[in-house]
């Protein structure tokens, strides 16, 4: 895809001059970012890079301190409800209501997004079906495996037919088989609907396999942006995304992951939830 073609596409998300502080800590430090309609865009970076904060600013969870964000032309400061209606959001944690069945979980969100009563049952069934959960739909969600929970969350997020699907670390804490199945579903979705997908990850292979374009985030700012191939070829013929990361940050993603209590705590709590 050439730069000229890209400019013709409409922007799904546009961020300008984003800065966000939590007390003394600056989590996002001057980010400009455009996600185009119909692409799978990956925010790649270690824990603490500011990816989740950026996403929480886009989806109206956090109040915008500095800069501007529009989602399909809706300003996140002034048109919160319009932004929320266009979004499907899957947070980092495995977040379902275990005391409800899979179907009830999806039906709940269909109601909260005002899916018309006449279409509700059909849309809920279709969402569950697209995530291969039809057979398990009437079981309590507390009996689901980690991979199934993640797919149920995707079904929940899709029941609204969002224009933009936001996935925050969609495969964190999942075993390789479950991770593959989530990747496969995201790819199928993109092929079937042309939906815009924004995902964050710290897995290089995930970004490489799924994303049309990626932005490399480190310590609150974007260090590099482009298609995975562009980023790799800038460094040489055999470069991997791991090399790209090292080139722009001076460290390896592995080092970053090992360091920091936050990283350990978050992986532990995910392991705990998966029980």
């Amino acid at each position, binding site marked *: 895809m050439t730069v000229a073609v890209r400019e013709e596409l409409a922007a799904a998300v546009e961020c300008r001059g984003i800065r966000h502080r939590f007390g003394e800590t600056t989590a996002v430090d001057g980010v400009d970012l455009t996600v185009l309609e119909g692409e799978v865009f990956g925010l790649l970076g270690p824990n603490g890079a500011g990816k989740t904060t950026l996403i929480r600013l886009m989806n109206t969870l956090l109040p915008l301190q500095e800069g501007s964000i529009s989602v399909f032309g809706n300003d996140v400061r002034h048109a919160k409800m319009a932004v929320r209606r266009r979004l499907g959001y899957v947070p980092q944690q495995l*977040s379902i209501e275990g005391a409800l069945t899979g179907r*009830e979980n999806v039906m709940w969100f269909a109601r909260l997004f005002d899916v018309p009563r006449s279409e509700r049952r059909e849309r809920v069934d279709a969402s569950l079906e697209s995530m291969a959960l039809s057979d398990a739909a009437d079981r309590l969600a507390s009996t689901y495996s980690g991979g199934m929970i993640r797919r149920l969350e995707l079904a929940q997020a899709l029941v609204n037919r969002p224009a933009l699907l936001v996935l925050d670390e969609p495969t964190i804490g999942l075993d390789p088989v479950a991770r593959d199945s989530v990747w496969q579903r995201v790819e199928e979705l993109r092929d079937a609907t042309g939906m815009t997908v924004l995902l964050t990850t710290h897995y290089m292979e995930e970004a490489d396999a799924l994303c049309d374009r990626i932005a490399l985030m480190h310590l609150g700012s974007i260090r590099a942006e482009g298609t995975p191939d562009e980023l790799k070829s800038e460094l040489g013929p055999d470069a991997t995304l791991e090399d790209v990361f090292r080139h722009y940050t001076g460290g390896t993603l592995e080092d970053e992951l090992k360091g920091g209590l936050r990283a350990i705590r978050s992986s532990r709590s995910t392991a705990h939830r998966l029980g």
Partner: protein
Amino acid sequence: MWRRYPSRVGTFCLVELQKLSHDRTELFTRAVQPILWLVIFGETFNRIHAIPTGNLPYLDFLAPGIIAQSGLFVAIFYGIMIIWERDSGVLTKLLVTPTPRSALILGKAFSAGIRAIAQVIVVLIVSALLGVALTYNPLKILGAIGIVVLGAAFFSCLSMTIAGIVLKRDRLMGIGQMITMPLFFASNALYPVSIMPGWVRVLSKVNPLSYEVDALRGLLIGTSSNLPLDYGVLLVAVVLGVTTASLLISRLAR
């Protein structure tokens, strides 16, 4: 936007009913404490006539107080539940649906009401079995259920407000335990206001639980009560509770 309110509140109530239908054990475990109050405390004090309740048997006087108490105990749990939902990520997702914060809180408040109704029905049946002379007038029973829902809605908002301030489950559990007993004892649930020392009487006067008990006694047992005042106080309390809890709820998402 306003017309979405009833649909959102209805959705949260429905989800609560679905949860209850999948796990009924809580209904029974939560019934144990009110039954102990009625059977042990109630029966004992009924016999020794230590508390002056006029011509009314003490057990009849006590039953509406225990109904209000079981609603209170159910509702106080809702702040802990909302912090649990925050930790599990469910709240985060709810907050990015097109649901106004106040509709979310109102929905939760009425879910507390639903759970309180389920509880109250159990206590009503036990009271009737113990020989409490309850009304059979369906309108009065409906009125009593209405007041229980308002009470549960207010106390759940109080709990969610504290959740929005302390932000941690263990802290809230401590505070929840710290406030439920004083709310219960500094009310007219166990004894008439007339025998209270002056300062407890003041506490009872500003305690919404007292108005809930007053209305329940009037409706279920037929003692003299000021129903318009009782309903009025609880309605105002719910409006204030929903407003403050809605303002604080976003703090949980940060």
